[in-house]
């Protein structure tokens, strides 16, 4: 039962490959959409059959089901965003959708397993598909992104494998929920460090974030949106499952330092960016920094982490839906006067940036508010001060984009709706919904995730 969402997703992806070969790309698209939609439904149905599956390797618990559903919904939104995009960029549509579906399957495995080896398999499925996705565009920047991502990804994978080896040596098995983290031996500690470092790479946390700007800039825009959201969710959920390591006293400072440096570094560097996707890359690094605060709260911070991931996903994908409809004209200069050229696009992007900057009544504000107040309540005052300061500084560069769009002259233009508008509306709805009526979701997370 717990395997069904995954089976549907992979099955339809395989069908998509076959139909793409013989009958054309339209079918690939159809099957990918269907696969993700049906898998989402299946994931919801799994809720009433929570538990362990497949010789206890898979774990469909509330954290897993919630994050899997999030991942599937976000993938669906990326599909909607890619819909208008791929025609312009000369990308083979079939590949884009199939690779996205396969990568998503990897992410699902990562969030619904209780075994490190399976998690590693999931991570590799996700990563290999991602390397290919990064290089889909036919220019040098995209190729560069793909190669960089792959080469550095190998680093991360090797950390993970070595970490698994240490883990096995220290605990005698590879189950994530075995009590290896409580083991005081240096071996267990090393295992935790290596595993966590590898996941920090996927999550774009300092000092493992260096690939982020280059890869974000080079990849096709919808794919960049996908990286910034789905990959991050998978990595953070796995980090949450390993959070017993994170909160060990010898270890805690490492993540705390990483969080602080991610926030400070990213928000400093972002100011001088002239490419919006690089800017969003630094924004993504800084948000990883905020989310790392939730990891420091241990398992008890799970609910706030998942809430933040949901919020972050909607607002970031909303922004990327707009960026994607700019057809890879990514320089800030291209956004000059967008409010005249296409008012709805400019208004949408401004809204999502305001949410990313953390203004009420958007969910971006609420996410930060809950995250920081929880961290403050747990006694991480220095981190909260830095985080609030970082948020303060970040407004400066988000605002820069808004100023470009609104406060510079541009020519009057048509009033057209891009195809990714649906994705923007979904994001808009949820960013407001989660900002103003978060009660139900918070209650759900509080009860089941704790």
């Amino acid at each position, binding site marked *: 039962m717990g395997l069904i969402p995954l089976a549907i997703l992979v099955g339809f992806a395989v069908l998509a490959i076959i139909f793409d070969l013989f009958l054309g790309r339209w079918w690939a698209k159809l099957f990918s959409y269907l696969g993700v939609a049906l898998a989402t439904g299946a994931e919801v149905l799994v809720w009433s059959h929570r538990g362990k599956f497949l010789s206890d390797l898979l774990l469909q618990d509330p954290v897993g089901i919630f994050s899997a559903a999030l991942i599937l919904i976000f993938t669906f939104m990326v599909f909607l965003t890619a819909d208008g995009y791929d025609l312009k960029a000369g990308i083979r549509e079939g590949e884009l959708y199939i690779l996205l579906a396969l990568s998503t399957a990897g992410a699902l495995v990562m969030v619904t397993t209780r075994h490190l080896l399976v998690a590693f398999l999931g991570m590799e499925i996700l990563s290999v598909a991602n390397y290919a996705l990064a290089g889909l565009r036919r*220019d*040098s920047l995209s190729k*560069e992104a793909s*190669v*960089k991502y792959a*080469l*550095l990804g190998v*680093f*991360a994978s090797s*950390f993970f494998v070595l970490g698994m080896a240490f883990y096995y040596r220290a605990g005698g098995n590879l189950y994530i929920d075995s009590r290896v983290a409580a083991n*005081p031996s*240096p071996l267990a*500690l*090393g295992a935790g*460090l*290596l595993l966590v*470092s590898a996941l920090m790479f996927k999550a774009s946390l*300092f*000092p*493992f974030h*260096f*690939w982020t*700007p280059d890869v974000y800039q080079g990849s096709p825009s919808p794919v960049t949106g996908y990286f910034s959201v789905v990959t991050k969710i998978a990595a953070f959920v796995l980090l949450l499952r390993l959070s017993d390591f994170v909160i060990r006293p*010898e*270890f805690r400072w*490492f993540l705390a330092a990483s969080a602080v440096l991610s926030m400070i570094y990213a928000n*400093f*560097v972002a*100011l*001088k*960016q*002239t*490419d919006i996707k*690089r800017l969003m890359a630094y924004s993504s690094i800084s948000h990883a920094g905020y989310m790392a605060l939730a990891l420091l709260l241990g398992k008890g911070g799970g*609910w706030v982490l998942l809430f933040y991931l949901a919020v972050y996903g909607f607002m970031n994908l909303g922004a990327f839906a707009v960026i994607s409809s700019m057809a890879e004209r990514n320089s800030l200069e291209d956004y000059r006067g967008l409010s005249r050229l296409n008012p709805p696009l400019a208004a949408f992007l401004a809204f999502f940036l305001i949410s990313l900057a953390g*203004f*009420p009544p958007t969910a971006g*504000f609420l996410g930060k*508010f*809950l995250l*920081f*107040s929880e961290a*403050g*309540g747990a006694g991480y005052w220095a981190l*909260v*001060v830095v985080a*609030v*300061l970082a948020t*303060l500084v970040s407004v*400066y560069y988000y*605002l820069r984009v808004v*100023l470009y769009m*609104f*406060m510079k*002259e541009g020519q009057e233009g048509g009033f057209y709706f891009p195809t990714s508008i649906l994705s923007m509306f979904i994001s808009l709805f949820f960013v407001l919904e989660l900002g*103003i*009526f*978060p*009660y139900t979701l*918070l209650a759900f997370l509080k009860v089941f995730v704790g």
Partner: protein
Amino acid sequence: MKALLGLIILFPAFGALFLVLFGRLLSKKLISWLSPSLVGLSFIASLISFFTLKSGTLLYLFPWLSVGNLQVDFALLWDPLSAVMALTVSGVAFLIHIYSVGYMGEDPGFARYFAYLNLFTFSMLLLVLSPNLPMMFVGWEGVGLCSYLLIGFWFEKETAANAGKKAFIVNRVGDFGFLLGIFLLFTILKDLNFSYINSHAQVLSPAMATAVALLLFLGATGKSAQIPLYIWLPDAMEGPTPVSALIHAATMVTAGVYMVSRLFPVYARSGFALDLVAWVGIITAFFAATIALVQNDIKKVLAYSTISQIGYMFAGVGVGAVSAGMFHLFTHAFFKSLLFLAAGSVIHALGTQDMRKMGGLRKEMPVTFWVFLIAALAISGIPGFSGFFSKDEILAQAFAKNRAIWAIGVITAGLTAFYMFRLIFMTFYGKPKGWRHAHESPPVMTVPMIILAFFSVVSGWIFAAFHHFLEGLGYVHLRELAPSAEHILVAVSVSLALIGIGVAWWVYVRRERGFNFGIIYRVLAGKYYVDEFYEVLFVTPYTQGSRAINRYFDKGIIDGAVEGSGKITMEGGRLLSLLQTGLIKDYGLWMAAGVILALTLAIRGLL
């Protein structure tokens, strides 16, 4: 009847939403009826609430946050403090909406303007009616956002765009303090409702109360333009004048005073924080008044005057007299918004803000002149006018608490009278300088001004009732002074005000020449060079630091188109060349270094 509270905020919210969605499609005529009348309805709802609702009425709307200890609901609170604020805000906003119909009549952004103005009214009412800190913060940011949008309303002008940006950034510094204050309070008390906080203020240790109070006060200095964060308000005058009247004089900028009054028990718990509020207030009052002495832009004079008057309000609250501070907030809302509207009427007629190009307008614009004069008399504290009652109450309370604060306040009162009448004499007296035709504004603009003029006089007469009403809060008390002492204090401040007016008359009507004190004048005209100081201290390090880090780490940054195109042609898609850029090696090195550093340190800590 509780539902009335919902109506108060619903009317302007509906207006904002409707105008944002359909503003482009509506005729100007429809907008100019719809938008003001919605705010009018909101005012009527506030009035009915005032007469029918009991203090402490809470309209529960829906649960907002409930996680563990934190329980925050969306609700609206009606008590003396919020009643005063809601009536003032909706009333003044209503009049300014009407005035704006005339003032903005020719502007192509008519619909957008009224959408923002309605949104502002909604956010401000949300701020004052909120029963807990997080909701207040939502309103706080909402009014801020509207304020930036309206400052930068004419964003084609670079100065306007920059002024909007400046307001935004400076206020973020304030928000930093405000947010940390909320977090800290939550950590200690585990509850963020005002009623709970105020009834449990005694639980806080004085040190904790001080920390909370100071952090929140940082937020107040940002929003209410006090030292050290006042620098955005003078620039904010780039916005349309009715906006300056509503947001940057009567309502939003007083939100800080409201917040301190709202959480007064926390401030009172920490004696130090309360003293600091009083001192920051009175020093700001003096400091801003000195800058106002030498400004030649009619709106800049009023902007510094606003900063100065808000300083008085903080001083009032800071010496422990909440109702005196709030009363000055109340009267100030009328006479200061009137001053701005009258100045707007002059600007509307002449097309300039430079007072050196005005002069002699008394005959051409009689209504504007008379209402201006009434407002100026009110702000100068001439007996019988509203400002007299509120300002003298603050000064009397200061006298009872701390003579030094009183002394600075009374000198500032003299300065206030001087710069205000300097403005009047330069604008309305003497010979016309550089203008040919001027005309009185249409009734849609003059009628709101006349109504405000009426309140600028009479609103001061209700002090006893006002104070009694606020006593319902439970923590509002005034010190009693001997009648003889009170008479002497009044005599001193009134005679200083009269001297100020007299000197202004002597300098600007009799001699008809400005004055120039050399270095002092230059320092004042340069606004003490605080902007430049902040630039060097904060802005430059951030931009330079960003550039430096980028140069070292982010080698992918393309600093100009030439380099970019060169890069693409040179690399030409050759994959192998990428390996030779050294970037990957660098990145890998960083990752490995990170892990190794962590490993060694962690294991050393373990052994």
